[in-house]
């Protein structure tokens, strides 16, 4: 399938979904609207709301706050994940001792931590950043740990035979291997950074996309809720695109998956 046809088909699916939404919410079928606009709003209302937000400029502050929170959560969570992942992988005793606790904390639904972070860190951005970190950290941590552990034994033996010392092994073998694993999870971890920020905002804040959605919900303003979701989805797609760009630059050495024949 060519790239143009693919994009056209993708747009068709989107338009079709919006059209169905429009039909079911505005045109009565056998005297009833299948989707009452009070609960489902309408595409037109949602569109008008989004335009209004951007025209009035109120949305920018919320987007900016959410972006800052997500970026901070991603940066801090990744750095911590890389460092601790490396440390555990190189020191099996440490990994063994902490293993049950790592599993315990990772199994915990992060949402329950949100109120605690709000208590500790207040309603500003840091409680959301903390929530995002707990999500991002584990993804990066497990990938880096795996990446360091699973360096091919042949490559490791080769590196040693080529005369590398421990420090050079780190730099030329373990580090690139761990990085490649980390980048393979980049989409997931960036996505979770945004999730952490929005959920945190939703549960208690004064700004951000999550706050916007929560406020509209409180007023039974369904158009506002949907508009917030649409803006959030667009926001995530833009960030995901940026991640893909970074990925393509940093992982040039990786084989591209062969294109499947349709």
């Amino acid at each position, binding site marked *: 399938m060519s790239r143009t046809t693919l994009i056209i088909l993708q747009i068709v699916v989107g338009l079709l979904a919006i059209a169905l939404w429009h039909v079911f919410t505005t045109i009565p079928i056998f005297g009833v609207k299948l989707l009452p606009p009070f609960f489902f709003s309408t595409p037109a209302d949602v569109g008008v709301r989004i335009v209004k937000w951007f025209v009035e400029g109120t949305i920018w502050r919320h987007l900016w706050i959410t972006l800052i929170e997500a970026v901070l959560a991603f940066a801090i969570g990744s750095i911590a994940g890389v460092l601790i992942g490396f440390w555990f992988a190189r020191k099996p005793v440490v990994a063994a001792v902490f293993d049950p606790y790592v599993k315990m904390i990772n199994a915990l639904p992060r949402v329950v931590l949100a109120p605690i972070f709000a208590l500790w860190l207040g309603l500003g951005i840091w409680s959301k950043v903390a929530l995002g970190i707990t999500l991002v950290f584990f993804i990066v941590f497990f990938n880096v740990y795996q990446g360091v552990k699973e360096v*091919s034994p042949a490559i490791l*033996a*080769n590196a040693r*035979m080529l005369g*590398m*010392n421990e420090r050079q092994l780190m730099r030329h073998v373990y580090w*690139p*291997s761990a990085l490649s694993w980390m980048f393979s999870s980049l989409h997931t971890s960036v996505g979770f950074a945004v999730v952490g920020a929005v959920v945190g905002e939703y549960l208690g804040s004064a700004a951000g996309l999550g706050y916007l959605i929560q406020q509209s919900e409180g007023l039974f303003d369904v158009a506002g809720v949907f508009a917030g979701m649409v803006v959030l989805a667009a926001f995530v797609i833009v960030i995901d695109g940026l991640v893909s760009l970074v990925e393509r630059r940093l992982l040039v050495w990786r084989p591209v998956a062969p294109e499947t024949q349709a």
Partner: protein
Amino acid sequence: MASEASRGGSLANERARGAAQPAVALDDITVTFPLGDGGRFTAVERASLSVADGEFVSIVGPTGCGKTTLLNIAAGLLAPSSGRVEVFALRLPGLNRQAGYLFQADALFPWKTALENVAIGLEVAGAARAQARERAQAWLTRVGLAHFTGRYPHMLSGGQRKRVGLAQVLIRDPKILLMDEPFGPLDAQTRQIMGNLLLDLWSADRKAVLFVTHDLEEAIALSDRVVIMSAGPHARVIGDWQVPLPRPRDIAEVKLEPAFHALHRDIWQVLKAEVLKGYAQSGGA
């Protein structure tokens, strides 16, 4: 490439030179591995083998006979359970710093280009980056990959990767070259080309080579001496043949000579029994 003088020099001469001080001497080596169920597995038992300086020795044996184990012992990647390993008459304390090792599996760094892969051995030894890369470029040219320097390993064919591997090992100018079925995964034509390339590079400065293979023809065509190992476990060295073929050789042509056939027949008689034993033990797998 190499001058005739360096290619010449009779076998007898070389043996006399090497006999004084073998490059690698494995003496009475036994290797046992602990098994999961508490037992022990003896891979190699009381194997002795020496490689003279400048000598090309092949180890041939059935699958699973501990050829690679013996090579890893010579490399210092594995310590023998008992026995002595000497490199130029000195006991090997750990990793064999005088040896270069070409692995059977792909061992290039996938995140480095061909050029970086070849240069890395010099860079970690403290050479300036620019200088290391310059010499890596020269080596890639020698193995016929002058135009592939910027490629990552996954963009190269199996044969090209082996060439990069060869350059990666040889650029450090090791005194001893250890090779573990390096051309195993390649197709027949590529193997022949790689074999000739190897002989060509080797004849330039005659390192001691220990070459592991399961292919008897390849072993005879390449080597000065062919050593046969018995089927594992408890594998031993059971035969040792000099190869009386003159050098320089062409792998394809040397296989047509009567001396080659005679030697092949002799060795195969011994090897065949071991191969069958090996098959029986591995359930014909």
